[in-house]
């Protein structure tokens, strides 16, 4: 298994420049950058929609938008954040990092890689364009439950096809990741010697390939129910609206772990680096990740405790859901044990990782509360759920992405960001994220349903706080963009090994890393 680029062939080709370079590129770093920039753009668009939501919810009464449009914002916000911001961010990181971490010249299937990316902007253009339709965009929530979603206007087939495309892109991307990891490792790098980020991505890719087609199946049935008279989701024809929910969540729950496992991998990379100590319990980290992934396929109905499942089903899904706390706990404990007796410093990536551990765990705790079926009868579809998942998604997954960008930026660009600004960014982000999402626990418990554009007056105070927090959080991210551009304007000064405690093959490469990562495969022992 030797890897060597054919230099002769490289010289025969002339590299296209300008836009054509990006359209035709098969290079993992180019494609990684495309993914990351795209993700940032989508984060801002999705965030902008969140700000519309928060602005409307600043006080009771309708001030800005009509209810129908509000629902479109909620739906689009979620679809864009999940499929446009978070997943592409992780794929971008995978593209940049996997070849460097396993000692390969590039991804295994570079042309496919180009395709996975270029589907995205078009699919999102199609999705977002529905907002400008006369009948409006999708408004049934990102979960697209029928019969409500069947009432959608002309947007519906566009939304469904764009989801098909996004799914296809994810599947192709995941296939590429698996092929790369299984087939392109440097000689000597056995599976149990792979960097943990590579492991988490391997498992995530498996989840993607197993889960995304199921979503495709579900929405295909929606389409035929709407346009071709099938009755999968209609009781009168022998179907059941709840059937859709089962299929959707069979995808949807693994999906949320798709959004967190790579984040776990990032945190497991950064914590040891800044603790200057090896990751505690590497093996158990791998097993924990795998168990979370496997368990994720048998817990889906915890999103549907209120649909009136038979008692046995409710009990089964409660137990399996609670079980996930065990492997997740192992991860948290391992991180803490990694820090224990380390020699820690607190650069920006580390700060974000530490905040991740705490805030993700808080989100996990509320998840555990939601898993308790009788209590979920109260929590379900309230802002308590919204608080839960934003805690795991924003200071969880998004923080991990930000941490990863700070951590690897010097490797990618050869340039170091401004540490002071990075810390300011961290503190602003962390303070505002809590101001935004913590009060949602309170209003949720006090009875505020989610997906409503207007609320009873007793919820006013905390909603105001949350809205202020959201705008603060948004502003803080403008600082992030500023930091990125400022870094890019710096001269190349970063050391090959930018962090004292960093480990892994990528740090043996020069900074910025060469276009084709490893010409000759490194030896790993």
């Amino acid at each position, binding site marked *: 298994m*030797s890897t060597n*680029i054919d230099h002769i*062939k490289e010289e025969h080709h002339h590299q296209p420049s300008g836009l054509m370079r990006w359209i035709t590129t098969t290079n993992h770093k180019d494609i990684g950058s495309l993914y990351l920039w795209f993700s940032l753009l989508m984060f801002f668009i999705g965030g902008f929609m969140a700000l519309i939501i928060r602005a409307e919810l600043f006080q009771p009464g309708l001030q800005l938008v009509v209810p129908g449009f509000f629902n479109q914002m909620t739906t689009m916000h979620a679809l864009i954040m999940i499929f446009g911001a978070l997943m592409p961010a992780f794929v971008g990181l995978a593209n940049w990092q996997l070849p460097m971490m396993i000692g390969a010249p590039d991804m295994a299937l570079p042309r496919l890689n*180009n395709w996975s990316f*270029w589907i995205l902007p078009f699919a999102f253009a199609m999705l977002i364009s529905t907002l400008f339709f006369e009948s409006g965009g999708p408004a049934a929530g990102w979960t697209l439950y029928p019969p409500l979603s069947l009432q959608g206007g002309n947007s519906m087939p566009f939304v469904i096809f764009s989801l098909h495309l996004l799914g296809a892109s994810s599947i192709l991307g995941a296939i590429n990741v698996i092929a790369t990891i299984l087939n392109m490792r440097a000689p000597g790098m056995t599976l149990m010697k792979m960097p943990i980020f590579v492991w988490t991505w391997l498992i995530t890719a498996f989840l993607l390939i197993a889960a995304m087609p199921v979503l495709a199946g579900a929405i295909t049935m929606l389409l035929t129910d709407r346009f071709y008279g099938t009755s999968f989701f209609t009781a009168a024809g022998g179907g059941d609206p*709840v059937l859709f929910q089962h299929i959707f969540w069979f995808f949807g729950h693994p999906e949320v772990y798709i959004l967190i496992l790579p984040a776990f991998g990032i945190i497991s990379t950064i914590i040891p680096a800044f603790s200057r100590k090896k990751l505690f319990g590497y093996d158990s980290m791998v097993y924990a990740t795998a168990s979370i992934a496997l368990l994720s396929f048998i817990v889906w109905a915890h999103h549907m405790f209120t649909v009136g499942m038979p008692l046995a089903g409710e009990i089964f899904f409660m137990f399996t859901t609670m079980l996930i706390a065990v492997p997740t706990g192992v991860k948290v404990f391992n991180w803490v044990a990694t820090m224990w007796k380390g020699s820690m410093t607190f650069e920006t990536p580390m700060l974000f990782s530490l905040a991740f551990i705490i805030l993700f765990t808080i989100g996990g705790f509320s998840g555990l509360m939601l898993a308790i079926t009788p209590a979920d009868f109260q929590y379900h579809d309230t802002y308590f759920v919204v608080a839960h998942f934003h805690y795991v998604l924003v200071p969880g997954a998004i923080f991990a992405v930000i941490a990863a960008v700070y951590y690897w930026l010097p490797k990618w660009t050869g340039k170091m960001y401004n540490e002071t600004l990075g810390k300011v960014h961290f503190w602003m982000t962390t303070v505002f994220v809590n101001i935004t999402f913590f009060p949602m626990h309170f209003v949720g418990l006090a009875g505020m349903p989610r997906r409503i554009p207007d609320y009873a007056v007793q919820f006013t105070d905390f909603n105001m706080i949350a809205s202020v927090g959201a705008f603060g959080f948004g502003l803080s991210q403008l600082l992030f963009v500023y930091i990125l551009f400022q870094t890019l304007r710096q001269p190349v000064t970063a050391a090959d090994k930018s962090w004292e405690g960093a480990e892994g093959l990528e740090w043996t490469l020069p900074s910025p890393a060469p276009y084709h990562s490893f010409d000759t495969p490194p030896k790993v022992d």
Partner: protein
Amino acid sequence: MSGSYYVPHETKWPFLATLALMIMFIGLANYMNDESTLTLTFTGLGLLLLVIYGWFSYVVRESEGGLYDDQVDMSFRWGMAWFIFSEVMFFAAFFGALYYARELSLPWLAGDGSGVSTNQELWPSFENVWPSNGPANYGGDFIVMKAAGIPALNTIILLISGLTVTWAHHGLKEGKRNQLISGLVATVLLGFIFVGFQAYEYSHAYNDLNLKMTSGIYGSTFYMLTGFHGFHVTLGAIMLTVILFRCIRGHFTNENHFGFEAVAWYWHFVDVVWLGLFVFVYWL
């Protein structure tokens, strides 16, 4: 050949494929909304086929030019294997729907288990007998496609085609060109015969049995599963045809013929899915 890993250079095909896909889907969505005819859809489809042709020709040329080594070959294998796995999961969603309807929703509507009130209050006279088009008798009475007729024949056809493609593979490995070509021809023919039978079966169902997509949950699951499968058989048969032409041109060697194997895998996958269909859709 090993020792030099081939990293392809820039390519225009994926981007063009995306454009074609977009045209196709936008056309289809407009068509579904009753806002246009299928012209745009077919334009997109045509473009897509062209792109695929171009893309694959390019890959084939590279492969024939000896640019690929064992490692690339292995990447293709992993890629194809996981792609087939994703297809399995796609089918799983539809099989899941069938299972749910038969084991859960219909019994509930008929008053089983937690469905007592559902039945009493909403669908008082409904009884659960499979096949069912639901308590509202959607689409009117219909007759079920019997497993014994064409479906059984189709099962045999597909099973034989699985054998012929394996036989062809042996021919390829042992350098028996005639065996290879005739095995492939037989497989392709069987594939298209299968599709032809199915088309006939559909028209029979629509015209004589009153069994339609709109025939409640039975019609829905029946057409979704068999239709989706039939679509895959068609794809597989087309891919086999391409492989056949490549074989006639003398493309593969007895050691290096992943293109052949990938399509053969795909064909076996389609075969296995059919067995599931035959048992759960037609038979039980």
